[in-house]
């Protein structure tokens, strides 16, 4: 059981690193939804079913939809940044 939770935490951290480094904003938003989904499963293993339901419905569903509508009205790609 603890091995499974460790695996979930590692997948969550990998998705977060991918969200930080993606240049295409759609990819970053999908990775953010993956982080919310892994967090929802970890909430269930921490014996919190109410919080797991709320995180799954709001974090992995509505937040992604709001981001995609906003990206549709603004830019899609992050420009290359130069260190200053």
């Amino acid at each position, binding site marked *: 059981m603890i091995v499974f939770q460790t695996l979930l935490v590692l997948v969550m951290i990998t998705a977060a690193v991918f969200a*930080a480094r993606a240049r295409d*904003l759609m990819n970053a938003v999908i990775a953010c939804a993956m982080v919310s989904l892994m967090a929802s499963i970890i909430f269930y293993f921490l*014996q*919190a079913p109410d*919080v797991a339901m709320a*995180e799954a419905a709001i974090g992995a569903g*509505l*937040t992604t939809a*709001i*981001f995609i509508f906003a990206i549709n009205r603004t830019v899609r790609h992050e420009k290359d940044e130069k260190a200053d």
Partner: protein
Amino acid sequence: MSLLADYIHYVGCFALVLIGLYVVLVKSNLVKVIIGISLIDTGVNLFLVATGYLRSGTAPIFSSAAAQPGMMVDPVPQALVLTAIVIGVSVLALALSLAVRLYGEYGTLDLRKIKELKW
């Protein structure tokens, strides 16, 4: 193995918070910064629920079969995190509406080019 069991949840929460903080500090696209804020929110909510956990605890709900209040996990952090998740999504929606408006005014979402905002 016991070292893993003791600290892996805290390491996960704070790795999320630190990655989100890195995105907020370094990236220059406004929507990317808002994604970083969302990552910090998720990490902090995970930490709050993890502090209420007891070893071999059960969920704080009385079903008719098992009605043992002895080993239930703490319900107060769960109630607070429920509120925090909804407030997080409402702050995100407001921030994204401001980003859409900024894009309409300036034509770009690069924070270095929007003149009023400097680091």
